[in-house]
């Protein structure tokens, strides 16, 4: 990720608008941009393959010294015989003038700044943005399509889908009639705030709507990247281990609620719901937990009540 603009150069992320079918690169190599360093200097750069007009390159060059190298002790004819190991001799490099620069730069600061801008945009329009996180296969997309179908007469929704590749999930969302863009992160394993910013520019979610951001299936990396959401919603299915909250504490600590999905399968799997909830509260005493099944519909009313309550707090 570029610290300046948030582009994930090298990962080749793309954004696809399902309404138009248009795909654009989120790391546009032609997008030259300018920014200001902490010392006030202005720099212009671009991402992607370098062109002939502006590129960084390495070259070998010699450093000539116009002076003799001295040793740090005098020699006299009376000295006992001795030698100097190479390691004690100054290397040419260490004799070059060099300087120490204090930077103290937070590496994630740029992402956090864009996330704060996203959050301001959402708050200014009373848009409820939620970041749905889980491991692959926990049922995020099924839960999301069920939620859209059940609540679309009461709430206005827009969806940003995140996956490394394919439009499969976005097409499932589009089938509900909901506006959706797909972010393909390429080699990236999480959504970053800039991707959400670009997705929002394309989607233009209306005021008082709900923006669902379905993150890449991954319980590690998405925990570190603020997208500007109101809350992270962790989805854990009972086909996974009940100790997942302890195994992936960063994610469950960062989430405001945990949806325990696929409870219709509890008779067939070894999963202790109470133990799982206790582990989640050990990591995050404030986490709210809603056991539910997106396929049978059991427990969905608690999740919907939470969602409607969140929307009402915006108005």
């Amino acid at each position, binding site marked *: 990720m570029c610290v300046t603009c948030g582009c994930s150069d090298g990962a080749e992320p793309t954004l696809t608008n399902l309404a138009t079918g248009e795909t654009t690169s989120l790391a546009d190599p032609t997008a030259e941009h300018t920014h200001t360093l902490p010392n006030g200097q202005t720099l212009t750069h671009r991402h992607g393959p370098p062109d002939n007009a502006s590129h960084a390159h*390495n070259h070998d060059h010699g450093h000539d010294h116009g002076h003799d190298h001295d040793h740090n002790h005098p020699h006299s004819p009376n000295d006992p015989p001795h030698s100097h190991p190479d390691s004690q001799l100054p290397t040419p490099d260490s004799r070059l*003038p*060099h*300087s120490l620069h204090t930077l*103290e*730069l937070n590496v994630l600061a740029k992402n956090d700044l864009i996330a704060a801008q996203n959050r301001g945009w959402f708050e200014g329009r009373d848009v409820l943005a939620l970041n749905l996180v889980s491991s692959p296969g926990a049922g995020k997309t099924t839960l999301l399509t069920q939620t859209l179908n059940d609540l679309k007469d009461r709430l206005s929704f827009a969806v940003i889908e995140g996956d490394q590749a394919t439009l499969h999930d976005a097409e499932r969302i589009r089938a509900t009639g909901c506006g959706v863009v797909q972010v393909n992160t390429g080699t990236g394993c999480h959504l*970053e705030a800039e991707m959400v910013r670009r997705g929002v520019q394309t989607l233009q979610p209306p005021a008082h709507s709900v923006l669902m951001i379905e993150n890449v299936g991954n319980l590690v990396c998405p925990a570190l990247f603020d997208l500007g959401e109101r809350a992270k919603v962790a989805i854990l299915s009972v086909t996974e281990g009940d100790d997942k909250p302890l195994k992936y504490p960063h994610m469950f600590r960062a989430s405001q609620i945990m949806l325990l999905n696929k409870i219709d399968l509890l008779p067939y799997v070894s999963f202790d719901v109470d133990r799982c909830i206790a582990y989640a509260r050990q990591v995050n*005493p404030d986490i709210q937990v809603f056991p539910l099944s997106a396929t049978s519909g059991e427990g969905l009313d608690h999740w919907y009540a939470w969602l409607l309550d969140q929307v009402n707090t915006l108005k």
Partner: protein
Amino acid sequence: MHELSITQTIIDTVIEAAQGASVRRITLEIGELSAILPDSIQFCFDACIPNTPLAGAELDIKTIPGRGRCRTCGHEMPLDMPYGICDQCDSLAIDIVAGQGLVILSMETVPCA
């Protein structure tokens, strides 16, 4: 593996800050509760810097231990996970007060001849 994109961010940041000077050493501070592995950052750094202005630079990583403060009684304690139990009052409500950061502390440069 978020360490790769994070390492690319570190490299971009340092190249920009160096303004054309050769960089000989970079010092990073990584919190032990940051979910960022120093070994992975070192691996990605070594893999990414050839053919960049940072080629040959050394990476010096300092780790910062985790610390928590009990929300109930205010007691401070070391943390080796991003959660814990207060050893004074058994509360689980622990705020993390240190060990979550990732900071480029400094760089050492040599002017290009």
